[in-house]
């Protein structure tokens, strides 16, 4: 098979030559890197990655093939995918096909043969930037590329309809305010014995309260949190009425609703090895994260920061005692004892229990 040359041109003018795999075509997106050594199917299908060209730092991708049950949503959301090497002969008992076939099916452009470490270093030093994939090694459309921004992110990825999951007779019913939740978020709640009512992002506080759920979980999702002005307004109405758990984008939206500010991170946290420390008991959890915006710690006036990133001190969690809410920047879905998820859910359940008893 003849290799097809393709170019990845960065907003700063750097050009990387690679070869095509996956779908054909050109793409523009925000170039970000992810440090997870496994989990490419999850990365591709995580709605939070909408509009992004994802670079994998681990050089060998596609080793265990693709199983669509591992997907975090029904489709791949990334704009393009950059790897050093993809595996044409995967090996795993659950593999249904190769990464190449999957990307073709999903219409995602892939590039391989790129020095991904060098690319990562550029992003680390200069921060995330836009990039373009095309057959030409130049940015003749510089303005278009530079101007690219992920817009209406939540609207694009979030489901439009109300959906139900889990056992109807479960002890707790959780309303999941879905801004582009991963399947694993729903699965984690169901696994722990909850009935989940997934509410569209456009739902109002009233509609959510009308579900009569015991608690509300604000999901993760893509894009700039400040874009979601109407959702933030609805959150303000909701806070204090029900126990609230926010994760990822949900965490940021609650903070915005409480008067804090958010900013775009230099290069964000994307990977499964982010250490977060609980300021309540001093324990450290190795968490999974995927975000490019963060809460500016100094602006948190309502609520108390209760988790920080061990590496860079960033705000990783806030507890709002009065509002009966608490939120985390990291993903609590991997709810084993060691990723920080379990204590988060336990706290949420305890809060719902208390509410139930008081009611």
């Amino acid at each position: 098979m003849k290799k097809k040359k393709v170019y990845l041109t960065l907003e700063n003018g750097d050009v990387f030559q690679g070869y095509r795999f996956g779908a054909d075509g050109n793409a523009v997106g925000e170039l970000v890197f992810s440090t997870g050594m496994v989990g490419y199917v999850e990365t591709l299908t995580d709605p939070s990655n909408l509009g992004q060209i994802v670079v994998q730092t681990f050089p060998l991708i596609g080793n265990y093939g693709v199983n669509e049950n591992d997907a975090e949503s029904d489709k791949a959301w990334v704009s393009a995918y950059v790897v050093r090497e993809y595996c044409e002969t995967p090996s795993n008992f659950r593999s249904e096909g190769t990464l190449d076939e999957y990307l073709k099916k999903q219409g995602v452009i892939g590039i391989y043969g790129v020095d991904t470490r060098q690319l990562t270093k550029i992003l680390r030093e200069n921060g995330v930037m836009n990039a373009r994939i095309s057959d030409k090694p130049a940015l003749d459309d510089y303005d278009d590329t530079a101007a690219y921004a992920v817009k209406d992110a939540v609207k694009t990825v979030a489901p439009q309809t109300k959906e139900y999951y889990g056992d109807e007779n479960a002890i707790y019913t959780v309303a999941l305010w879905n801004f582009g939740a991963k399947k694993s978020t729903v699965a984690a709640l169901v696994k722990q014995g909850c009935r989940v009512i997934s509410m569209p992002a456009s739902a109002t506080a009233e509609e959510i309260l009308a579900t009569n759920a015991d608690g509300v979980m604000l999901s993760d999702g893509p894009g700039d949190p400040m874009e979601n002005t109407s959702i933030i307004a609805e959150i303000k109405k909701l806070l204090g009425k029900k126990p609230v758990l926010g994760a990822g984008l949900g965490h940021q939206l609650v903070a915005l609703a409480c008067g804090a500010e958010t900013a775009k991170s230099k290069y964000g946290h994307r990977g499964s090895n982010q250490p977060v420390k609980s300021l309540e008991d001093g324990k450290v959890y190795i968490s999974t994260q995927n975000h490019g915006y963060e809460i500016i710690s100094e602006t948190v006036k309502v609520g108390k920061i209760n988790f920080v990133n061990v590496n860079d001190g960033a705000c990783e969690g806030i507890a709002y005692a009065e509002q009966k809410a608490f939120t985390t920047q990291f993903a609590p879905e991997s709810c084993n004892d060691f990723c920080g998820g379990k204590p988060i859910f336990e706290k949420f359940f305890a809060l719902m229990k208390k509410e139930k008893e008081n009611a």
Partner: protein
Amino acid sequence: MPKRSDIKKVLVIGSGPIVIGQAAEFDYAGAQACRVMKSEGVNVVLCNSNPATIMTDKALADEIYLEPLTEETLKRIILKEKPDSLLASLGGQTGLTMGCKLAKSGFLEKHGVKLIGTKLDAIDRSEDRELFKQTMEKINQPCVPSDIAYTVEECVAIANKLHYPVIIRPAYTLGGAGGGVAYNEEELRLISHNGLMLSPITQVLIEKYIAGWKEIEFEVLRDSKGNVLTVCSMENVDPVGIHTGDSIVVAPAVTLSTKEYDMLRTAALSIITELGIEGGCNVQFALNPDSFEYSVIEVNPRVSRSSALASKATGFPIAKVTSKIALGYTLDEIVNDVTGNTYACFEPTIDYLVVKMPKWPFDKFLYAKRELGTRMKATGEVMSIGTAFEMAIMKAVRGAEISTSTMNYKKFVDYTKDELVARLSEMTDERIFVVYAALKKGATVDEVFNITKIDRWFLNKFKNLIKYEEMLATQKLTRELYNEGKRLGYLDKDIAEISGQKIPYRKKAAYKMVDTCAAEFPAKTPYFYSTFDSQEHDEAKPFVEKSGKKRIVVIGSGPIRIGQGIEFDYSSVHCVWTLKELGYEVAIINNNPETVSTDFDTADRLYFEPLTPEDVQHVLDIEKPYGVIITFGGQTAIKLCSYFATHGIRILGTSADSVDAAEDRERFEALLEKYAIPRPKALTVMTKEEALNAAEKLEYPVLLRPSYVIGGQNMTIAFTQEDVCRYMDVILAQGIENPVLCDKYLMGTELEVDAISDGKDVLIPGIMQHIERTGIHSGDSIAVYPPYNLDDTMLEKIIEVSTQLALELKTKGLINIQYLIYRGELHVIEVNPRASRTVPIFPKLRACLWWSLPRRLSSGQNSKNSATARACIRRRRTWQSKCLCSTLKNSTTLTPSSVRK
């Protein structure tokens, strides 16, 4: 939690002599532990019987006891030194067992000594087979169906219940000693009898043999606060059944999807949490390749061989962090040395692939059984780093010094496909090459998988190499094709050889950094591996360019093998340190993960690379050093000598010509003749006929050995024609480049002299006399210092001859001379113009610091206080003897090591 204030004086137990399953990695771990303790202001008392270790250097501990590691000795040391704490989890199984014994007997408590690091109870629950099983059941972690037995009859009863085949695993033994797989009752009786005998508590575990499952390891850490993390996952290329020390291992695991990875990671972390480990720990799993079913095989509640590998593979210093945890620190308080501004409490992520390949001693023991199983047989290992599996395995293979630089093994070239397929079921050290040859001869991936159960992922990667070799052999060697070869890890010489064409141009290597975080954070560690990416982004270059000093490259000693143990790493490290003291900037090239020399803070820059001319040349292209030093890297480094000499690279110390003068038999003989120094009559031969004639001429018995070798590789004493024929048949079958030496065998007294010279003066720190007869290799002999029955005339004679030889060979640095006294006459057996196995013995023995002298001489700086030798030769009241440690219980091999008693 900050440092505990109740730890002021710590007794550290080392691991003793190198044995199979416990090599130099414990010097590496122990040295880090001592350094951490000292830098924290803790008084360090160290006990280790192995003098060839960095940790037993005065600089690393306050009090050093070179004493045997027995309960009695340790008790005496505790009574004398009165430490308040004992650190046992960094001295391998030996240290751990000793620590446990002392704790259990109540001795520690009585004398107010705390066992720091992992608690006794945790150690027991991981090491004792029965307690371990109970613990795993408690937290619902599946174990392989098994039962404990204390007698052979119990073993038989259990095996009948589990059905054959079963694995026998003795409790509290090292490297799987005494274990094995039994397919029937007869085998079971034999193995379990032996296993029960070797277990210090006469206990074995009989376990269902789950052949064909994947073997996956996790290296995990836990602190006293209960924070846990995974340093690294590892996947064995060989499925369950071959000891992990004998398996080719890749890091990270490559065939696990997120679901399996998370499942096993969670299991590993649950296990160390339940056990209450404090420090580094290794957890081994068997994973059914066709489902999510898994079993916990084993937990090592201490720093191990795998943790050394995981440390070097990720850059995360497990031993250092474990020591800090023992001192009371928690993971979030320990700074990550690699980045300097993040913390140890994170999981390393890497952006390359690591391959570990074992180094087996079978090349030294022609008649040894090559089968691999649950008992470890490898003496050492090499590690390699690449951006692709193909590149990493190629680097590992050529770094292992097994006379091939590709996956094509000479021995199997002429085999047919059927012959190769028939051999696939033999689990030997050569199987990986049989697999490759079989695939090359047309066996399908499935065919090979069904027999070997080696995951198809690896087999397909081999297919990639095979496809490339086919392209090379049939197509025009374009730049593109050449570049592809470099990406896959081929040397220029192999590309040229396989294609039969001249290479179009020479692509230079670009170095990338090992930084624990896949470039997410800027790193400070000058720890590099080669790639063939654009040189523009070379990460070593900025470091080199910053250097204002004169640069020197030190060649390391490669994998640990019989005859080339930790001594050479010890020498290399001292060489680096001395050069740094002298104001040079030093880079080291080595590929042995078990060593102090491959710690990223030993030299100014570390290149983790195989030690072949091309790999070394790539480093030199970047470093552009003033010169290279080869005399401390054993035979591995000496082999590069002629390359350097012919490529205009300055060799510091003894010249290539002098090395050749000592190694080349004819030149050497001429030299001896010049001074009328006798040596046993010898002839060089290339064929069986020549050998028989030579033996006839010299008269039996004769000593046969190949030239240019170390550690008596394939040495034998032949008494009859039959012996000669048998020897030559085997040796010629492997293909030889240099002639075989046939020496007249003289039975007499053997002596060994290490001397240092600057080309003008000669310093002889001591003479060692062997107790065993000649013909027993010097590395296997008990030696005493000073000599016990030589008169002054003979001593004078030895000094005279040694001085003559050292000067005549223009030695600049160390020289090792072996003598033989036969009927009152001094004969020279051989001369090695380089650091020898015995070098580390003298500095310790003499308790004087002449040690730093040779390096100064090697680097060309003159020494004023040489020639003070004669006076120091005798005048010692105590006799120090070097005795060997055999590992007969492990296998049929014999591992010499330098243990002083």
